C-alpha cells in the first residue's frame, strides 16, 4: 500500500515561501516543524504517513546534507553528492506512488515544512535575497528541489539490477543527467528510453563526452514527435538508440 503525505494548502505555500528567508540554516526545530494545520491528505488511496516516518525522513535527508557540508554553502561536488544520495533516500523510503508524487502540494509540504532548512541550503537565495519559487513550491516538478530527485530515481530505477537498482543515478554526470531528465521532457516521458540512453552512454567506451549525448537527445526528440516508443522492447530500443548515437558520432566527428 502506498503512503499518503500531507498536502500544503496553496495559501500556506505562499506564506511559507515568503517567509523562507527567515529560516536561517539550522534554526528550525524538526519536531515542531513537521506538522502544520494547514495541510490536508488525500481522502483515500493509502495509509497516511506516520509522524515517526516523517521524522525519520527528515533526519535521513538532513544527515545527507550534513555529510555534504551543511550548513556551509555547497560546492558543485557537494550538490551532486547530496542529490544522488537523496534521490535514493526519497525513492526507496517514501513509499510514494507516481500519482501521489505528481501532487505539487505534497512537494510544497516537504520543501517548505519538513525540510525548509535543507532545501534552502541546497538552492540558496540569490544575491538579492530571493529564492526561486520552482525549487520549493512544486510548480515545476522537474525543478523542485526534492521532486526532481524522486522522479529521477523513479525513471532511472533499473529493475533488472537487483544488487543496485539505482546505479543509473551515478552513471552520468549531473549536467548530462539534467539534460536527459529536465530539459528533454518528451524523452523522459518514456522511461525505458531514458534508461536506454543512460545505459548506452554509460556503456560506451568512446571518449566522446557531452556533445554526443546532447546531439543524441536532439535526434531522439525529432523521432518522439511522431513515434511512440513505449511499445518497443529492450533490444529494439537499444538498436534505435545505438543507431541514432552512431549517426550523432559520425556527424560530430566528420
Amino acid at each position, binding site marked *: 500500500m502506498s503512503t499518503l503525505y500531507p498536502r500544503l494548502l496553496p495559501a500556506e505555500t505562499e506564506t511559507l515561501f515568503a517567509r523562507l528567508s527567515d529560516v536561517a540554516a539550522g534554526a528550525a526545530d524538526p519536531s515542531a516543524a513537521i506538522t502544520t494545520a494547514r495541510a490536508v491528505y488525500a481522502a483515500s488511496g493509502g495509509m497516511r504517513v506516520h509522524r515517526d516516518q516523517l521524522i525519520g525522513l527528515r533526519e535521513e535527508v538532513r544527515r545527507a546534507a550534513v555529510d555534504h557540508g551543511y550548513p556551509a554553502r555547497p560546492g558543485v561536488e557537494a550538490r551532486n553528492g547530496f542529490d544522488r544520495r537523496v534521490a535514493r533516500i526519497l525513492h526507496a523510503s517514501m513509499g510514494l506512488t507516481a500519482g501521489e508524487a505528481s501532487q505539487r502540494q505534497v512537494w510544497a509540504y516537504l520543501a517548505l515544512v519538513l525540510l525548509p532548512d535543507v532545501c534552502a541550503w541546497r538552492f540558496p537565495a540569490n544575491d538579492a535575497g530571493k529564492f526561486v519559487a520552482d525549487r520549493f513550491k512544486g510548480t515545476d516538478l522537474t525543478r523542485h528541489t526534492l521532486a526532481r530527485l524522486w522522479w529521477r530515481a523513479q525513471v532511472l530505477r533499473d529493475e533488472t539490477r537487483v544488487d543496485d537498482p539505482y546505479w543509473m543515478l551515478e552513471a552520468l554526470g549531473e549536467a548530462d543527467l539534467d539534460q536527459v531528465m529536465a530539459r528533454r521532457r*518528451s*524523452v523522459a516521458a518514456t522511461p525505458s528510453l531514458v534508461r536506454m540512453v543512460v545505459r548506452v552512454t554509460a556503456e560506451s567506451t568512446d571518449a566522446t563526452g557531452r*556533445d554526443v549525448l546532447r546531439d543524441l537527445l536532439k535526434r531522439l526528440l*525529432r523521432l518522439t*514527435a511522431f513515434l511512440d516508443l513505449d511499445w518497443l522492447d529492450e533490444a*529494439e530500443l537499444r*538498436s*534505435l538508440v*545505438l543507431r541514432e548515437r552512431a549517426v550523432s558520432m559520425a556527424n*560530430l566527428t566528420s
Partner: protein
Amino acid sequence: MSEPSWFSQPFSPAGGITAEGLRNQLGRPELSVLTVLVREAAQNSWDAKESRRVRFTLDLRAVGPSHMPAWRELLRGAPRESGALQSLNEVLRRPTIRYLAVVDRGTSGLGGPTRSDRFAEPGQRGWLSFVLNSGEKQDTDGGGGTYGYGKGAFFLASRVGTVLIHTRFRDADGRLRTRLIGSSLLASYNDEQRPFTGRHWWGDAQEDHCEPLMDEDATRMAERLGLPAFDDGATGTTVVVLDPDLRDPSHDEDVAPDLSMREAGEFLADAAAWNLWPLTLEDRAPRMDVTVTVNGDTVAVPDESTDATLAHFATAYRRAAGHGADTEIHCKNPRRLLGHFAAETTLGARVRSRAAEELGLERDTAPHHVALMRRPDLVVGYYQGQAKSHPELGYAGVFKVDDALDTVFSRSEPPTHDAWVDAQLTGYEATYVRVARRRLSERCADLAGPKHAPKVVESTPVGAVSQRLGFLLAGVGTGAPLEGDDGAASPPTAPPTPGADRARGDAGGGGTAGAPGGRSGRTRRPQLLDHPRFENLDGTWLLVQRVRTAAPGRVRGLIGVVTGEGVETSAPASAEQPQVVGWRREDGSVVHGTEVDVAAEEIELLARPVEDAAVEIDVEWAENVS
C-alpha cells in the same frame, strides 16, 4: 654483410611454378582486392596467434621524406619486368610512394629454416610456407586456411606485385630473432636464353636462393624504411604491401577511380568490421584488436557499440555460441547436427557500409541476412534470406557449423573461403552443405513472416475523423497533434506557429485546417487549406500546402521541425533542415524564395521536408498590408 640486393629465381631442372601461376591460385575472387586482403591477412594472423590478444593493424601511409632515400635504394635495383599492373620502376619515378602495412602482434612470427630444401619440424614452417613455398597444408590447429594460398592476397593487392616481410619470432633457444625480406611475383621471362620464373626476392642474395636480412641488419633496414617497429619482447609479422591497389571496389575494374587515402582507410575499417567482427567481440578470448590508421591517424572501425546492425549480429552470435538445444540445426537423413543458428529482430537498423555490401548484405535496407561461419569464427559470407514486409524491420542471424563438420564445410569453400559450394563435394558431404542452406532458407522465411505485397484497399483522408476526435487531445502536449496513417513524418494539420507570432488557440483541435488563430489586426492571416501533401517535382519530393490569402500583399512561408517538445530550436549536428523552396501559382508558374507577392488568391507553398521528422508549416504576412 653486403648491401641487400635482388635475387631472381631461375627455373630449376626439375621445373617450377611461374609467378603468374602463383598469383592465380586465389582464383578470381568476387570480392575486391582490399576485402580479400583483409580477410586473408586476418586469417593468417589469427592462425599465428600466440597470446590471448592478437593486435591486427592496417596502416596505410605515404613514405615520408626522411625514409625516401632508403626506398629509392631498394627500388633502384628492382627487376624491370612488369607482369603486375605496373613495374617497380614506375613507382620509383613517382613523387610519393604509398604502402599498406598489415601488422600483427601477439602472433608467432615467421620462424624456421630459410631455405626450402631443409627439413623443418611441424610448427617450424612459418617462413617456408609464407615466404618460399606455396600450397602448404594447414599446420595450425583451428586454422581457417586449408590451402596456404592466402598470402597471394598480399601480392594481388600490390599494384607492383611486391611485398616486404618483416617478422620477429623466438627461435628454438628462446631468443628473439628478426628477419626482413622483399618478395615479388611478377611475370616469367627469359634472360639471355635462360628462363626465370618471375619470382624475385630482395635481401641477402646467395648463389641459388635469397636469405633475409637478419637481426641487427633487419632492424636497421626496417628503421631506415620507416616500418612499424616491434615493442620489447613482441613477436609478430609486418607485411608491407607496396603501392596498394586502391581502386574503388564499387566500380568496374577498368574504370574505377582511386579512392583517396582516407576513403581507402574507411573502406578497410568497414571491411575489417564486417568480415572480422566475431573475432573482435569484447567478451571473447582469445580475441583480435583491429586498428586502422591512415598516415598515423586512426580510422574508427565500426563495432557492436557503434553500429546497430553489428550489435544484432553480435547478440545472435552469442546466442548461437551458447549451443542451446533451441539453436540446433539438423540434417534428418543422414541424422546429423549441422550447426547452431540464432537470430535477432532488428528495428530501424540499416546496413550502411560498402564493404558489407560486397559480402552479400544490401545497403540502406534493414538486414535480412545470416552470417555464416565455422570454427575460426571468420565470416564466410552473409546468406540473404527473405526480407520482412516492413522496411524498418529486419533480422540478423548467425549460423555456425558444428566443429565436427568443419572440414567438410571448409572443403566446400573456394580458395578465398567466401562461400559454401556443395558442387565441390560428393555424397553425404554435399548433402550436409545443401541441407544447411535449405534449413537457413526455412528459418529466414519463418523470421520474415508471411510474404505479402502491399495492397491499397482504400485511400481515405482521415481529416474528418480526426476533427471529430480532436477534442480528446485538447490540452495534451505542447505541439499540434500529429497524424500519419503510414508511420511517416506527417506535418500537423493545424496551422502551426514557428514564428514569434503565436496565435494558435486550438492546439489539440486536430485537423482544423483553414481555421487560423484569429486576425492579425489588419487582415486575416493567410489560411492553410486542406492537408499538405507530398508531390514529386523533378525527382524531388516536396511538401505542398495550399494557402488562401484574403488580400493582396507579401506573404512569407515558414517551416520548421517539431519535436516532442515543440518547435525545434537547435538541430542535431549535420541534420537536414526543412526549407521553403518556393510558391506555385494557379497557372503552374513557380516563384522561388520564402516570400512571394500575392493577390487575394489561392497559392501553393512548396517546401522540402526532412526524413524522419515531423514538420510544421505556417504562412504569415511579410509586411503590413494597407
